[in-house]
């Protein structure tokens, strides 16, 4: 979230799209209802299903799954063509005025640089025109046809309301009605927010989709303001924190993982530290060397010295363009290229696309360790044929699966302390309340015991790569059970000379005199103590920032980009509703996303970006600088804008023996998978309450489709895709509206997740149906908008 949960109450218009917060984030949704009640805010829900968010919305617009970019692109066109943009904001805070290279263009679904043979882009043309000093050239008048604004205007001129209706399946009137409300926030004094979740990320073009949303919010001047922003509603208690702590391609704090071509620390820093593209860009990522050096000091302690590149060589290096994300490594596992696997509180059999492929992949391992609260489908994968009944006809018996499995009982949230980061980026500290049941152990003890045991083996026997393993600092008071408070202090960072906690990331150095486990968390546990455990009730701005409650990254800032809530001179766009104010000598209010005492004209408002301003146009993403509507990889229709480039040209599609793609002649219906409010993911099927509220797996079917197929509510239906099938009773409802798309009726089939072959209540795993198709930027699978068939059993 750019803003936060409490901040939603400050808005005038809420666009919920690609999410269903009333069901999946009910407590966060209270702020939507508060905005509706107290500010007369309008709630617009755009979704294939009339869900519980739609039930309390002011306007509901149905749309076909996977066509969100068309809808948002339509909104961009609507705002520009109806002169509803907040142009003062656009001029000051965005790259609208930047000039593009002459060789940048777009035609027939492809941007310039497309190599049809390699199926890849050369991004050279996706750049600004630079002056002699390496800065981007600009045209403040926005008259130059090669400026970003004009290019964007041209790009989206194709997205007329009629075109949107043709692609999305709503009517042009429905679209215009919603657009008028959404775009009413394109002026000072009125603000709108966008709430989204996995309905936007589960696509083969998900990052571009969110880019479109950001562009719309920038055009309407809604980024950085209270009640504005683009707000991801994350689905797990610490999914934000685990992201902050790194993944296959990231070190903690969004520092990039080294690649083989960067052999020295210097070359790494040179490649990953951006250079400013405008003279007034603060370019905060220019501090990357300080953050990276401090991280290496936290990792390798005294062994990290300037002479040895602070131990940079010990970190593993990715290949030059290697992708080790989920889809790719499970594909490798399926090809028997992996031997061991450790799953800490995750259930890949249930979570990953194409369940049967997941099962086959795990069966190709030598060993598997699962650390869990409950026995999961992953832990019991070797028994899937028996437990999963008819759904895995090709799968093998337990006897022929040679994977050795060790299942370790772990403590749950109430049995260990530490901090979670919520969607608002608040770090909240919790305390252990009870000991774990039976012999179960807290995860940090488990990980520490394994780590120490592996090191003991290397100590005794030697072996490959001993040095990187032994130098990783593990100097906790109790190495077998590190106290999480001690770890939290390490994460915050220390000054080596004084031994004191650093007050924040501004104090980090690139000379090895500071250590910090994650620079974005620096400031969370200072000499003042554990700020994550704060319970202060003060709200001096009255905007629900609560600066003394818990601690928010970065630097306890509650609203990101808040400098943009002011105009060029530092005056709030809405004086009644200002997050930060310039009082002539410093900024007051929220922690400014700016230098605290820098006068308003000194820097651009978007201090993290090399441009200093927000980007409509970006070369960061794989499929192009402007988002373009692409159909899902499995779609009932061809792309109405460019039928020959129908789906995302650069999205990875796995092609193992277990992967196959369906066509609309055999699989005519569009399927979406989703959560219900009664359950949490694949956990609450183990919990009595969730089991009571929704005991049964079911399939939501539109009335029209049910009638065609002679299906009544409660009849058992089989839903099948090119990958597999699920069976359950049909819930026949008018809430799943048929959509008219390009003259043809398109039905959606709604499939709630939550069940599996282990649990108090059981049912099929819906990922039996989903394809191994991924977004090229984020690696998320396409769970919304794939093709299925439905038949009565």
């Amino acid at each position, binding site marked *: 979230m750019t803003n936060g949960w409490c901040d939603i109450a400050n808005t005038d218009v809420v666009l919920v799209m690609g999410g269903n917060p009333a069901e999946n984030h009910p407590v966060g949704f209270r702020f939507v209802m508060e905005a509706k009640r107290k500010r007369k805010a309008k709630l617009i829900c755009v979704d294939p299903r009339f869900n519980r968010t739609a039930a309390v919305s002011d306007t509901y617009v149905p749309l076909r799954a996977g066509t969100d970019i068309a809808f948002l692109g339509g909104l961009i066109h609507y705002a520009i063509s109806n002169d509803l943009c907040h142009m003062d904001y656009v001029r000051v805070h965005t790259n609208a005025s930047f000039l593009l290279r002459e060789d940048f263009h777009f035609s027939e679904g492809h941007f310039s640089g497309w190599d049809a043979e390699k199926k890849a882009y050369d991004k050279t043309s996706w750049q600004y025109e630079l002056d002699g000093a390496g800065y981007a050239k600009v045209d403040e008048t926005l008259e130059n046809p090669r400026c970003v604004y004009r290019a964007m205007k041209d790009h989206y001129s194709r997205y007329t309301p009629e075109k949107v209706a043709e692609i999305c399946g709503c009517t042009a009137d429905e679209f215009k009605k919603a657009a008028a409300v959404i775009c009413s926030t394109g002026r000072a004094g009125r603000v709108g927010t966008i709430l989204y979740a996995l309905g936007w990320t589960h696509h083969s073009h998900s990052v571009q989709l969110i880019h479109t949303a950001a562009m719309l919010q920038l055009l309407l001047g809604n980024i950085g303001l209270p009640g504005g922003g683009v707000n991801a509603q994350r689905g797990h208690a*610490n999914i934000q924190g685990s992201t902050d702590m790194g993944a*296959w391609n990231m070190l903690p704090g969004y520092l990039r993982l080294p690649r083989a071509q960067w052999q020295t620390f210097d070359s790494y820093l040179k490649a990953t530290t951006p250079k400013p593209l405008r003279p007034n860009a603060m370019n905060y990522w220019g501090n990357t060397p300080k953050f990276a050096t401090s991280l290496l000091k936290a990792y390798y302690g005294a062994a990290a010295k300037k002479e040895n590149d602070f131990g940079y060589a010990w970190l593993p290096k990715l290949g030059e363009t290697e992708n080790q994300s989920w889809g790719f490594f499970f594909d*490798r596992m399926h090809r028997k290229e992996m031997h061991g696997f450790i*799953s800490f509180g995750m259930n890949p059999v249930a979570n990953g696309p194409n369940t049967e492929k997941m099962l086959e992949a795990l069966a190709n391992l030598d*060993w598997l360790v699962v650390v869990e609260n409950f026995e999961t489908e992953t832990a019991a994968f070797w028994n899937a044929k028996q437990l999963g009944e008819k759904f895995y006809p090709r799968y093998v018996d337990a006897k022929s699966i040679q994977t050795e499995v060790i299942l370790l009982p772990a403590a749950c949230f109430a049995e260990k302390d530490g901090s979670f980061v919520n969607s608002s980026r608040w770090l909240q500290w919790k305390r252990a309340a009870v000991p774990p049941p039976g012999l179960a152990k807290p995860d940090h003890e488990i*990980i520490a015991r394994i780590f120490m045991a592996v090191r003991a083996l290397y100590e005794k026997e030697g072996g490959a790569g001993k040095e990187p393993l032994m130098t990783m600092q593990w100097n906790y008071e109790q190495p077998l059970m590190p106290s999480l408070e001690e770890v939290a202090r390490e994460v915050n960072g220390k000054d080596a000379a004084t031994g004191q906690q650093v007050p924040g990331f501004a104090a980090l150095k690139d000379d090895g005199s500071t250590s910090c486990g994650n620079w974005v968390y620096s400031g969370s546990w200072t000499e003042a103590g554990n700020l994550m455990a704060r319970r202060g009730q003060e709200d001096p701005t009255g905007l629900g920032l609560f600066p003394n409650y818990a601690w928010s990254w970065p630097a306890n800032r509650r609203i990101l980009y808040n400098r943009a809530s002011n105009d060029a001179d530092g005056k709030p766009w809405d004086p009644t509703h200002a997050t930060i104010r310039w009082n002539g000598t410093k900024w007051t209010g929220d922690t400014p996303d700016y230098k605290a005492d820098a006068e308003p004209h000194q820097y651009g408002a978007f201090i993290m970006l090399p441009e200093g301003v927000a980007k409509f146009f970006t070369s960061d993403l794989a499929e192009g600088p402007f988002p373009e509507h692409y159909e899902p990889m499995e779609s009932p229709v061809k792309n109405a804008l460019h039928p020959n480039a129908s789906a995302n040209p650069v999205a990875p599609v796995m092609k193992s023996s277990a992967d196959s793609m369906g066509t609309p002649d055999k699989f005519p219906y569009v399927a979406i998978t989703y959560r219900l409010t009664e359950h949490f993911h694949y956990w609450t099927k*183990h919990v009595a309450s969730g089991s009571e509220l929704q005991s049964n797996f079911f399939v939501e079917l539109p009335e029209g489709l049910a009638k065609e197929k002679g299906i009544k509510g409660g009849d058992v239906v089989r839903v099948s895709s090119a990958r597999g099938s699920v069976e359950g009773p049909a819930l026949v409802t008018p809430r799943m509206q048929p959509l008219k798309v390009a003259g043809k009726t398109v039905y959606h089939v709604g499939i709630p997740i939550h069940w599996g072959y282990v649990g108090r209540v059981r049912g099929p795993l819906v990922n039996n149906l989903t394809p191994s198709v991924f977004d090229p930027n984020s690696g998320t699978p396409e769970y919304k908008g794939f093709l299925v068939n439905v038949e009565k059993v």
Partner: protein
Amino acid sequence: MNLQVNRRQFLQAGAAVTATAFGFRLEAATAAARELKIARTNQVPSVCPYCAVGCSVVIHTSGERVRNARPTVVHIEGDADSPINRGTLCSKGISLKEFVVNDRRLTKPRYRAPGASEWTDISWDQAIEKIARRIKDTRDKGFVEKDAQGRTVNRLDTLGMIGGCTDTNEINYLLGKFRFGLGILPYENQARL
């Protein structure tokens, strides 16, 4: 920064939701009623482990000072001090007790031998020893110190690791050290899905 919420504060906070809204004292309106089941509990502040709204909860436990007994959770309720949830919770959160105190919870390490159709019990020491051995064998075979071009890469891609989305930052940080110590590249969390 007082983490310890005592019972009176908690009860007051609970009542405050209405009392401050209407300036109306509930106590005046009460009559002899059933005994309050959380009247004598110990209270520990925590955070809901489900979605990322980040609701604060108060875990009511009993049995801390009882000899020869393990403390157990008797009730979990929203924390009125949290600006996010102000004491409220959703249907999953309000039944967190059912999650913690649950006969389906795993209570001992289990082992499934290659080709076996059943779990068998295994001690922690044996389990850790086995895991360490498997990791070492896999790593010894799969660790790449230098790639084909002779560049130092110190990497391991035959061993994968996932998790962390419901573990604390601190545990995620330790998982990171574990991973980078071993050189593991296939490393993912729920955020990808």
